[in-house]
């Protein structure tokens, strides 16, 4: 007999039977990870947007019927630069205004006399921005019309949307975790029924319930761990592929890029651990309940 004998696992290996369960759990982890990655991307993009909106105010300069748009934009910029809270002024060219219309009008050139509004961007102190009313008062007597885009309204709406998306994703992830826990609990009960001989034999040689529960808990923790790694890895690959191949980066300029950052790699160990933990806890609960109600 070998002197280095190791005790055999008390629960028989059931690799063949575990495979479908592993697949289901990996799919659930995949969905949960996608929800989390999506929420994180939305959050990051929303933060970037709201930060930019809070530090910029846009003036639309609409010249009069015979007015010179370039001169009006220059004058408006000069006037606005004197306001407290304005850090700098950026006068956008006519080409920049045309670029904004390109998705709707195509690449055709507009006639030179087309009254295209010109844009002036005010870079403002986000902590102490000038009041919209104060800006509007500046141009009361101007020969051109000025529309002040109050970005704060956008920022607030965007922040609300971002929070909604975030909570929706968290809810979705929790729902998927709950589904995984229910699947594991069902599988753990089935596994106990199938290995009743083991549980009986262990009970009769004096094993307490926690000993038997520990065996199943360990098995399902490992299963959850494997499912977590597989599901998270697939979700990361899917997120990168979606963002790179069919995603929003550069394709539609006003949508944020959902390309996950390098920090998303952290989802791999986190998902594996959480998946193992959920699997272990639900198996423990199911087996403890089954033992307490089913055996002497």
């Amino acid at each position, binding site marked *: 007999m070998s002197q280095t004998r190791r*005790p055999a696992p008390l629960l028989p290996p059931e690799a063949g039977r575990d495979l479908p369960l592993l697949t289901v759990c990996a799919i659930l982890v995949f969905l949960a990870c996608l929800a989390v990655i999506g929420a994180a991307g939305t959050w990051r993009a929303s933060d970037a947007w709201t930060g930019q909106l809070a530090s910029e105010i846009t003036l639309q300069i609409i010249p009069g019927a015979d007015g010179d748009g370039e001169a009006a934009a220059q004058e408006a910029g000069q006037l606005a630069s004197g306001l407290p809270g304005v850090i700098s002024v950026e006068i956008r060219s006519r080409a920049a205004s045309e670029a904004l219309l390109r998705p709707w009008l195509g690449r055709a050139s507009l006639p030179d006399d087309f009254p295209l509004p010109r844009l002036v961007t005010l870079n403002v102190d986000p902590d102490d921005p000038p009041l919209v009313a104060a800006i509007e008062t500046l141009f009361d007597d101007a020969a051109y019309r000025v529309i002040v885009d109050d970005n704060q309204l956008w920022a607030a709406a965007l922040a609300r949307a971002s929070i909604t998306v975030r909570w929706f994703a968290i809810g979705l992830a929790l729902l998927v975790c709950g589904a995984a826990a229910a699947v594991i609990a069902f599988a753990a009960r089935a596994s106990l029924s199938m290995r009743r001989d083991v549980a*009986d034999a*262990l009970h009769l040689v004096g094993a307490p*319930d926690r000993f038997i529960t520990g065996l199943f808990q360990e098995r399902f923790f490992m299963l959850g761990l494997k499912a977590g790694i597989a599901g998270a890895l697939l979700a990361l690959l899917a997120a990168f592929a979606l963002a790179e191949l069919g995603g929003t980066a550069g394709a539609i300029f006003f949508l944020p890029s959902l390309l996950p950052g390098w920090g998303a790699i952290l989802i791999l160990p986190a998902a594996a651990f959480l998946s193992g933990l959920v699997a272990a806890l639900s198996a423990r609960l199911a087996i403890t309940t089954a033992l307490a109600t089913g055996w002497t």
Partner: protein
Amino acid sequence: MDQTQPEPHRDPDAGPAVRFDNVGMRYGRGPEVLSDISFELARGSFQFLTGPSGAGKTSLLRLIYLAERPSRGLISLFGSDTSALARDDLPVLRRRIGVVFQDFRLLTHLSVFDNVALPLRVAGQRVSQYREDIVELLNWVGLGERIDALPPTLSGGEQQRAAIARAVVSRPEILIADEPTGNVDPEMARRLLRLFAELNRLGTTVLIASHDIALIRSMKVPVLELAGGRLTTRTRAA
């Protein structure tokens, strides 16, 4: 057959290892399979339990090793009323009882060595602590060459010996055996009885359920006889 009567270990100050007072038992809502059973197994005693098939022998053994609870009456183990035991108290009591099941109940995915080691493993011992003892015990029961075999590859007699080795490996205070020599040849039956007798000399209370009249007579120990779920006689074999 070994004709030597075991010399029971007795502690006059201790209560009985097992005590039944007017115990009745039924499965579910069925009829009583055991009725008005009262007896004691003194600590260190060696007794047989006999009776025809269906008399209730296995049910009575199941009550002793706490696999069932009585429908009525009182059962005490080592002086403790088992009806007052909490579920968490059962494992500690069960570790003091070794059981040889009629159907062996070996775990088919574990080797003979691992099956026999089960009670020690559950008690928290490491392989290095019990390896030599198990090898010695398996040699004693004639399974030294089958140590790594899986139960499905063993004959009925070999499985029975493995089950006996598992029951005695932790030197239990009570040993209960349900037809432990039913599948072995007479020579091995004598050998196994010597093992039980040796354990009894060391203080283990032994109760063996058997149909084998010759075996029972060979030991010259008290016999409990069940018939129709009732304890009919309690005699010393001639």
